[in-house]
């Protein structure tokens, strides 16, 4: 039996740039000097170098949204964003939404509506919602769904997530 195209093991071998470069990243309002390999994703740098583990790795392929962070206020997949490309931009992770006991209203709403079940998609989901709330206007349920469509959740069936976002919207506007 001859096998074609069925090799499952292994990604392409890492070729090219070796060694690290020194960069600075502005994460949650703080400057972090870092040594990174140019090929490293922002997700890897946040989790493994900075130790901000609230940003989750669910697929590493821009398909689930668990790794969502805000870059200059816009939600992006940190798994397909190079750390180098985040230089000079404001990075907000889930850890940046709370200060001590004070949490963001969107976090409060998610908690009270049971919008976090296993909680693994929650940081990314909250940041996508936060980006929407930061914009002007009064998005309706459909616009909320559009804004969160890049974030997969397997637990909630999304309805508590929409309720939590709507409620925050009502409180803020």
């Amino acid at each position, binding site marked *: 039996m001859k*096998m074609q195209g069925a090799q499952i093991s*292994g990604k392409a071998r890492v070729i090219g740039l070796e060694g690290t470069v020194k960069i600075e990243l502005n994460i949650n309002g703080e400057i972090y000097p870092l040594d990174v390999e140019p090929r490293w994703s922002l997700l890897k740098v946040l989790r493994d170098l900075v130790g901000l583990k609230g940003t989750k790795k*669910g697929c590493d392929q821009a398909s689930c949204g668990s790794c969502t962070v805000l870059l200059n206020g816009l939600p992006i997949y940190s798994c397909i964003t190079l750390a180098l490309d985040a230089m000079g931009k404001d990075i907000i992770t889930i850890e940046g939404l*709370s200060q001590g006991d004070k*949490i963001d209203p969107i976090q409060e709403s998610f908690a009270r509506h049971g919008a976090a079940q*296993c*909680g693994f998609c929650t940081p990314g989901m909250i940041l996508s919602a936060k980006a929407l709330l930061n914009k002007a206007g009064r998005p309706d349920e459909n616009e909320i769904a559009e804004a969160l*469509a890049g974030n997969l959740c*397997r637990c909630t069936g*999304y309805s508590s997530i929409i309720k939590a976002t709507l409620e925050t919207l009502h409180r803020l506007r």
Partner: protein
Amino acid sequence: MEMHPSEKLVGKSVTPVMAYDKVRGSVEYPSDITLPDMLYAKILRSPYPHAKIVKICSEEVERHAKVKALVTYRDVPQIPMGQMRDMYVLEDRVRFIGDEVAAVAAEDEDSAEEALQLFKVSYEPLKAVFDPEEAMRPDAPLLYPDGNIIRGSSSKPTFVLQKGDIESGLKAADVVLERTYSTQFQSPLAMEPRCCVANWDGKRLEVWESTQRPSYVRDELARVFNLAPDNVRVVAKVVGGAFGGKNFVQRYTFIASLLSMKSGRPVKISFDRREELIGAYLRYPHKICVKGGATHDGRVTALYLKLVSNAGNAVRESLTPISIASRIPFVLYARIPNIKYEAYAAYTNTPSGGGVRGYGGTEVGHVLGLFMDELAEEIGIDPLEVYTVNTVKMGDELSHLAPRATNVKVSSVGLAECLTKGAAAIGWRASVPKSVLAVSERRGFGCAIGLWTGAGGSTPSGAQVDVLEDGSVILSNPVVDHGGEQQTELRQMVGEVMGLPMEKVTSIWGDTDCCPEDLTGVVASRTTLVVGVAAISASQEAKKKLLRLASEYLQADFDDLGIEEGLIRVRSNRDLKVSFGELAKYAASRGESITGSSTCQPNDSIYSFSAAFAEVIVDVETGLVRVSKIVNPVDVGRAINPLTLEGQIVGAALQGCGYALTEEMTLDKTYGFALNQQLYDYKSPSILDCPEIIPIVVESYEPLHPFGAKGAAEAPMVPVAPAIVNAIYDAVGVRIRDLPATPDKVLAGLRRKG
């Protein structure tokens, strides 16, 4: 109307106790665990669907500067694992594309990945088989020496259960129908790909693991590595979703442990998404033939089901889905006098079948949901009548338990209420609402019923309650949180019994070193009843000890004492009082502690019932089905926490939508490998696919639970897919008998209809 005016916590939508940590992103999942000096391991997987490993040359791997340990089949204990004892940690044989061949641990993940390429493996390819019916033929290539049919042969099913006589039942029928259905591989698709960290210190093995069953994983690690169970610790506190997919043991845990033993350092294995999709478990696909007959009044006189199930390359996990699926005909349709359920499970060179929400029941429930709809149409009556006439009623004897136990009666059934409330909510058979449809769109309604275990499992669960000197109580329990937030409902129940507010009840869980035993784990919708009853009994014992001590301390009559908010007062003299904390100190001064502990057995006579009503809109030009509404009533006995309960129902309903319409692991016909190995082509519902989902809680008060509750996580899923598929028929007259109901099948059906 307040039905339980005296209850302060039970029945209330208390905010989940871990919610604030989850929204902050501060919960530590297995994938977040990092230990000092930790190595990262990767698994080499088979490129062949079926082959013997002739030779593995690993010299180059060993020479890689960053590799610290490797394992092949030559390094593993020769002790078989799994329910069928049909797998080893590694073998010189591979049985599907993706099977584990070897593994390396290196200083970083990239180096481990790189080192995998340096293995030189010589395979001797063997003939492979991917279809269970082909695997059952006598000339099929064998995956295991005992034959491909698990625990059976071509004349002996893997599992069979029957009552009455099918032939005479069919003779009594006015209408007889025979249909064949099929269901697909579905991934549980937890958002966190599984991960484990193993740390061997020369004497003790510690493992942080993505599991629903820490106690079982500990016992299996101890058995395979010949260690005392006390020298193995398994920790799983919060896991990023499971849905049955993190049930049982998996090879990677043993591989990580071996690599740690060889390297003397902690080792982490994280599955990538592709490994999680194909290297873990999938819902068993089945081909199911159903033959049944009914009289004109809708009474089903005979029901015969024959399943052929694809168990995949190994029963890595469990055959339970095959046997427990019989609960759908035997318990749900208990009033049918003649039933035969026979199932053949066959090995094939495909990914593994295993646990996914309501396993077995979801598939057979789906098929019977479709069959009853067809039968009702054939007779010319409303399917609700078929459901009403043939299903289990309070006090019916549970024949599936015979001959182990006879005369066991079902103790709580809220199915009739599920049907009436659901029908009212969707407007069943009422005039169709006049919302505007496009020219090519057709609207349809469908319904189905379901049930799943309300106190499932095979072994008891334990719980312990301790009163602390600060006046709080702590509940030790075995319940891993993989999204159910059961710590919340357990603390509510303990607080209710002890007369304490939520903030005075804490808990510890998910660590085999300090938590009570639970070999079955957080599966089978069992926590609310099984662990719940253990926690309640433990609380009652601790409370009794408190009162006894208080009676001594206050020199008051035991019966004259009452508890409120952490204080014990003498009823006849309310100034005489003592706090829990003071009593705990008093007990400590005498070298005593105020503790209660208990265990509770699972119960195969307790079931949670459900119905689903679906409204769909089908586009006859594109074949696309849009679910616009799901009404999902569930008999949960009693809602302990309506908020977390509704989260379970709505989540299950959407998984049912995915199962009905989009989710399928498609296999290549020639090599049996999964064609959609990533999230972008395995279609789990997104927020844009979400219909309006209306959960309805039905409370039938299960007498075996002091608050009347039973399980709830799986029953809601069972009737959703058949309700949707029946609604498609209602809309466009096309019966889709093989899941999922994708647009091509709808269009093909429309073409056949002409």
